[in-house]
């Protein structure tokens, strides 16, 4: 066999288009927990289409495992489509909030500068504390924790990751295919099958 699946584990961004259905989050989460797999990050949100939900799930795994998981997710009745992509294939962001004592920030010009250099933005300023926000990749939001720790970081929280697939043209056209009782090939367009074309030759 000519195909050589990379064995290294790396971050994969799984994008799931679904119906809005109570219990579906649970059903999808169980696909991972059943296999004792950790979900690094999970976000649910609306998508470009009204009524269609979009899950962003991040896991650290091999491509082989991710592709199997993707098919297990896609098998769920209320799931329309699953994609998985490496970090290079997506534009992704995470948001973080940092709460620090206001007096320190006000006193130390250095803190001001560091925040500015790291692209942090003030969300609220109160007498007792100030909340900053940054948006970016994991390393960027992590970096600011280290910077703020010496200045009495009171609270930190980071959001789940959201990701846009670079070479996706959205789900609108595909949805129309799904709505037809006899869909065209578009619906089965799939990473797996496309790679097969190269794999097998007689």
């Amino acid at each position, binding site marked *: 066999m000519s195909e050589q699946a990379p064995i290294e584990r790396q971050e994969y961004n799984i994008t799931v288009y679904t119906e809005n259905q109570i219990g579906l989050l649970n059903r999808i989460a169980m696909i991972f927990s059943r296999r004792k797999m950790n979900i690094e990050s999970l976000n649910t949100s609306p998508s470009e289409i009204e009524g269609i939900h979009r899950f962003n799930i991040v896991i650290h795994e091999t491509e082989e495992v991710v592709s199997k998981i993707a098919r297990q997710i*896609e098998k769920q009745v209320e799931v329309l489509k699953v994609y998985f992509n490496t970090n290079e294939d997506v534009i992704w962001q995470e948001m973080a909030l940092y709460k620090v004592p206001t007096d320190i920030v006000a006193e130390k010009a250095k803190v001001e500068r560091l925040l500015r250099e790291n692209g942090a933005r003030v969300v609220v300023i109160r007498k007792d504390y100030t909340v900053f926000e940054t948006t970016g990749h994991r390393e960027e939001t992590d970096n600011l924790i280290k910077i703020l720790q010496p200045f009495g970081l009171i609270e930190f929280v980071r959001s789940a990751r959201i990701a846009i697939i670079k070479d996706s043209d959205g789900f609108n056209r595909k949805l129309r295919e799904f709505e037809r009782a006899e869909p065209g*090939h578009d619906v089965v367009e799939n990473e797996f099958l496309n790679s097969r074309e190269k794999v097998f030759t007689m």
Partner: protein
Amino acid sequence: MLTQEKQAPALPETDTQLSGSQALLHGFVVEGVDTIFGYPGGAIMPIYDALYDFECDLKHILVRHEQGGIHAAQGYARSSGKVGVVFATSGPGATNLVTGLADALIDSTPLVCITGQVFAHLLGTDAFQEADVIGITTPVTKWNYQVTDATEIPEVLAKAFHIARSGRPGPVLIDITKNAQLQKFAFQGYTPCDHIRSYRPKPIVRKEYIRQAAELINKAKKPFVLWGQGVMLGSAEQEFKAFLEKTGIPAAWTIMGAGALPTDHPQNVGMLGMHGNYGPNVMTNECDVLIAIGMRFDDRVTGRLDKYAKQAQVIHLDIDPAEIDKNVKTTVPVWGDCKETLPLLTQMVETKQHTEWLAKFREFEQKEIDAVIREELFPTSEEMTMGEVIQQLNELTKGEAIIVTDVGQHQMVACRYAKLNHTRSNITSGGLGTMGFALPAAIGAKFGAPNRTVVAVIGDGGMQMTIQELGTIMQSGIDVKILILNNQFLGMVRQWQELFHERRYSFVDITSPDYVQVAKGYGIPGRSINQRENLVEALQQMLSNPGSFLLEVMVTKENNVFPMVPQGCSVSEIRLK
């Protein structure tokens, strides 16, 4: 006194006020349901109340435990090819379904289960008999849904039937709160569902893969077909046979696939897997092209995966895309319903005979006969073997019966040796290996195929797991032949302890009640034998009895099932002793 013929309510006109329960039952009638297995309770009482008026359309079988109910529905679905239906109440009624749901999911059995639930306003309050049934059953259902408003019922039920029976079938569960069962609404009719936009039951057939598969098959010197239940689920037995006969390829079955091709078809080379036949297991690692049809490469079939068919090009026909490459890497995936893909493939393959290759299987078979089978079926030992009981049963039924098996040594023996002339004739708990399956499943199988003889082959352990269903037999008057193969042990576990745990027989010694007395208590005639000279006559008595009959056969205590692929070994390391 005048007896009044009960009339089932006709399908009401649009805008008629119906309760959720009535709407539900009308839906069942439209879906063609004739039999329901169930058990009532507080939270499902409105549905049972409505059922009272549907008696002539919907036959309700009162089981003795909800696990029995769901296994019966499985047996019904497996023998008839229709969707099995189960009713249970909230809380304990619903949790008693869990084993059957898991069993039906892994064995792709179409079921629609209805559970009652507490009133919607009580959800989450730890109300009496409240359990999070949707949460509990999510991992063991193909789909589940909680209804809290009666107006949803027709649409949800229609969806449930569509999901249960289409694509790769499976169990679905609808949990209906009591208020929704009672609530009156303007009924808008019942329309069966055939499309859900997020659900693709059948992947689109890709002709290029079929062409590639055909090319591989045409070039193959030693092709080998493995088939599973998918052939039956797709009602593709004829298409499968046509493919086999044109290509001349030897074919072996998983226990879930048994019977899709008659046992004595010349290309049927036997059973795969841990206790399968010698030839098929060894040849898996010698063939050049492996064609898997409607099977999922379960570990009991493949043994050690990294030594499984590594030399072969693998063609995998399956309706479930998630099965492709799941366990065994495929060279050519043929997605789709084999009812559609097999004829396309048959068109493109050359007519061939693989006489020499087929003869090799027969050589292995001869070795297996000499080492195992002859002594098992025609023992020289004093005590009876399980194999000879099945052999004599074959002689009497001529392969016409439905054999329902429980789990353990008797299951493996029955599956190995039962003669099956027809499809849907071997009903067993394959994927989950659920002891206690056989007795209730046999009841359901008989309801699903009333004109066939149904024989439940059960161990002394499994019989005691769902023995209460003798009550269901008694009350329904159903005709099920119960054949207990009593080795006075949890035999399969004992075999493993003997072979892999230095004969440390830890808690496998099991006593039995006097089954004949127990059966008698339920009004079922019975007999127990321990002498070979009585075997044929006792089997005849069982089969010719006009109703149910229980026959206990005392067999040798410490027999082992061979051949065997020990766990963690490759299929080619199969042991004959």
